[in-house]
């Protein structure tokens, strides 16, 4: 077996990583001091809350003594040494597991407020930060996990996403926006959450020069909107001025009174797109005329390369491993995993491996093994966290895949289905969120477990469908961009309250992304059966070569060809499965997942906007 020496490939392999230094040591100490001031009554609750959110710490469900620390992973790229640090921090200060979110953050739950500064201290050591991960700021800047390896992309948008993130982090112009603000980069028109962000960007080249298609004013929430295209092409030079202009407009005109309607999408819709568009273009020319060079120089596409090396980072450079002689004990499991977790990159001979997690949860030990595997088997020596709450490890040599699989298997990470319908997304729900009505998190895991057991990951016709679940209408689980989405609520059934979900059909992401449409309510304990029922019906009804997702789109349009033609038909077909027997016959059907007591919808003040 020869080692591959393809100049073309070598070119794509980044240099050894340096400390990106997103974090700042002094913020750690300031945070610790503020906690003491707050605890001794010298700092008001409101002031402290604002400060805390600015630094990435949410309150936990009905227990404000504990925080959820949201760690930003700008552009979604995370290094082995950072994963190892997260492992240690999760053991020391959290619950021994970390959690991959739907916006490329990694979260540590149930951290005692007094320890948040210690978590921050650890983050600084490896160059990470939780600063501006919550609060009315520019949240983590996302980038498609396939950026740089996607066969359909025009160029790699990763450096742009990081430069934008770095430009706005701690920037005085966005420390106190009317509301949170989200920026998402795609790799191509298919992959990326560009239409559900305040600013969504798709890289494209025009006449040989690089630039973006920029969408504005999208976003999910209790009321969701799809973003509008600003102009056909925004050149690279105008990237920063455009973003600055939008942020400035929002800062100036956004609604600061009504918390429920103050995302930028409301501004856009109240004003009307044409008017907003004109204002952005005008503001942009002002920005371009008035922005000092010193400001522009803060936008630096290669900022990270000037930084120092990370401690302990131990990469094996471009050394290729030989074919692994070790036989995987179960070849079938391996094939199944390759089929649904591995995709070919545009760089011939290299693959991106998706690591299946359960609703984003990963233990400290798994993180450590993952870090070691990345060091040795990924030629770029980094991972990306994905909005599907998984990890993507890129630049894996095809010959190393069996070894990769074996290592994952050694810590229970070798589940198949990462890129299929089985990998359900679930927000944190009642496991930690103040606003949660249902245990969306556990439901996502239950679905994954059941669907893998049934082997649904092996059915290629279900491949392009997704399931996403939120524990309330707020959309943190992005249920509106799922093929089949669910958001949690409570319904009276007979004389008792039961946890239920509102089911939506037909959401999608990418540049042509659409929001799902509400179909019907489903009791929590009937969700799995309902989805299985839908799949069964689909299998009977589908047209030649039609995938589940395509069929659902047909149903939504009322154009399906079988006996089920439209949404009303499918509601009728599902009427039986969503029925619950009386509570005295089946009390557990009226309880939520993870609970053996009678269901009550308990919530407290959310901090999404504070």
């Amino acid at each position, binding site marked *: 077996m020869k080692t591959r020496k393809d100049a073309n490939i070598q070119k794509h392999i980044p240099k050894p990583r340096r400390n990106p230094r997103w974090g700042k040591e002094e913020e750690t100490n300031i945070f610790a001091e503020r906690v003491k001031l707050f605890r001794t009554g010298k700092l008001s609750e409101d002031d402290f809350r604002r400060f805390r959110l600015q630094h990435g710490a949410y309150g936990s469900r*009905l227990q404000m003594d504990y925080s959820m620390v949201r760690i930003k992973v700008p552009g979604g790229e995370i290094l082995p040494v950072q994963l190892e640090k997260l492992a240690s921090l999760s053991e020391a200060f959290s619950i021994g597991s970390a959690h991959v979110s739907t916006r490329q953050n990694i979260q540590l739950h149930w951290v005692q407020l007094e320890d948040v500064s210690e978590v921050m201290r650890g983050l600084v050591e490896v160059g990470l930060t939780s600063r501006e991960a919550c609060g009315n700021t520019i949240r983590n800047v996302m980038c498609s996990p396939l950026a740089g390896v996607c066969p359909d992309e025009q160029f790699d948008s990763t450096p742009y996403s990081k430069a934008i993130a770095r430009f706005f982090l701690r920037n005085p112009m966005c420390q106190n926006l009317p509301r949170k603000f989200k920026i998402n980069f795609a790799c191509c028109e298919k992959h990326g959450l560009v239409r559900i962000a305040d600013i969504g960007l798709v890289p494209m080249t025009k006449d040989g020069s690089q630039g973006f298609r920029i969408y504005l004013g999208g976003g999910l929430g209790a009321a969701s909107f799809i973003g509008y295209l600003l102009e056909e092409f925004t050149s690279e030079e105008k990237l920063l001025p455009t973003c600055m202009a939008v942020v400035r407009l929002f800062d100036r005109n956004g609604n600061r009174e009504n918390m429920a309607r103050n995302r930028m999408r409301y501004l856009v819709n109240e004003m009307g797109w044409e008017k907003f568009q004109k204002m952005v273009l005008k503001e942009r020319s002002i920005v371009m005329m008035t922005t000092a060079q010193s400001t522009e120089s803060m936008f630096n596409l290669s900022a990270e390369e000037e930084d120092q090396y990370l401690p302990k980072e131990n990469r094996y450079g471009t050394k290729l491993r030989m074919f692994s002689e070790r036989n995987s004990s179960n070849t079938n499991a391996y094939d199944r995993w390759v089929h649904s977790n591995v995709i070919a990159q545009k760089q011939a001979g290299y693959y991106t491996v998706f690591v299946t997690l359960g609703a984003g949860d990963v233990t400290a030990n798994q993180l450590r093994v993952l870090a070691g595997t990345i060091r040795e088997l990924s030629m770029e020596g980094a991972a990306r966290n994905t909005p599907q709450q998984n990890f993507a490890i890129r630049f894996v040599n095809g010959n190393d895949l069996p070894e990769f699989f074996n290592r994952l298997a050694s810590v229970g990470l070798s589940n198949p289905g990462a890129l299929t319908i089985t990998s359900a997304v679930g927000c944190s729900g009642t496991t930690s969120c103040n606003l949660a009505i249902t245990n969306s998190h556990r439901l996502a895991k239950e679905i994954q477990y059941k669907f893998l057991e049934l082997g649904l990951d092996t059915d290629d016709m279900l491949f392009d469908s997704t399931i996403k679940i939120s524990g309330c209408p707020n959309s943190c689980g992005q249920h509106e961009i799922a093929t089949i989405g669910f958001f949690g609520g409570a319904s009276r059934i007979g004389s008792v309250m039961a946890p239920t979900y509102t089911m939506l059909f037909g959401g999608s992401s990418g540049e042509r992304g659409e929001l799902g449409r509400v179909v019907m309510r489903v009791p929590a304990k009937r969700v799995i059966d309902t989805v299985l029922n839908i799949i069964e019906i689909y299998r009977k009804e589908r047209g030649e070569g039609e995938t589940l997702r395509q069929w659902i789109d047909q149903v939504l349009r009322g154009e399906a060809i079988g006996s089920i033609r439209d949404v009303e038909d499918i509601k009728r077909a599902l009427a039986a499965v969503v029925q619950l027997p009386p509570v005295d016959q089946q009390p557990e059907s009226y309880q939520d997942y993870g609970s053996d007591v009678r269901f009550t919808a308990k919530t407290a003040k959310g901090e999404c906007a504070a």
Partner: protein
Amino acid sequence: MKLKRSLSMDSQKKETLSGRGSGLESEYHSTPDTVCDVNTLSVLIRKKNVRVVDVRKEEEYAKEHIPGAVSLPLARILEKESPTHCIELLQDIGVNEDLPVVTYDDTFGALAARVAWTFQYIGHQHSSILEVTFSQWKNMGFRTEKKSNSYKWQPHPLKINQSIYADLAYVEKVSSNKVLVDSRERLNFLSEHIPEAVNLPYTMLRADGRVLSKGDDIRRFLQNRGIHENSELVTYCGSVGTLSGLVYYGLKLAGLKNVRLYARSFKEWKALGKPKTEFKDANYWDLSAE
């Protein structure tokens, strides 16, 4: 409310104990009644001026152990919880009042801590835990041996040290200065704990590659929680005082003077039906990826 560095006396002793002091971690050195670093132990072993106690299972000891170590599994200490039984065990491994004892295990220091604490409780002043586990000792390239060791019986007086011990009555006694420290992991603590206890999980006090963090770090954790030097801390865990034994040593390392171990811990508390604080409003267990 700054915690004073209270280890000055100990650091003097360190000089004489560790000899050349070629420490791996210069900030982190042995103190005779808390934690013993690997270099100090090597020197002590060479000078034959220490009793090294292997508290793992006998089979594990038989395979391989630190040179000169004797086997005394934790189970033997616990089989009869009487001080006279324990003092006999100490005498049988040839420990007199002056000989330093260093315990080790392969269970992140928790078993070693429980044994070392017991020796202190029955009146042995110089008993500490090794800063690493047996596996780490080996990985660092230190020597091991296979031959089984025994030592001549030595006299050792029994002097119960009540100041490091807490029983149920002590835990229940109301005192404004007393802080109950629950040493279990976060999810266990959230599920149920003794009312008013604070959570200082043992996982928080350990470091990469060592069984305990540096005293300075632990001191800062305590400061963050508003716990000060004069507080009286009582540690407990889920069963027999192992995890809380480790936390006991962590607190000593941080320089706290008044620390006690509630050896019968939450197990006794629950068995007696004492009141508990429970948190049932969140399904936090479902976040665990275990």
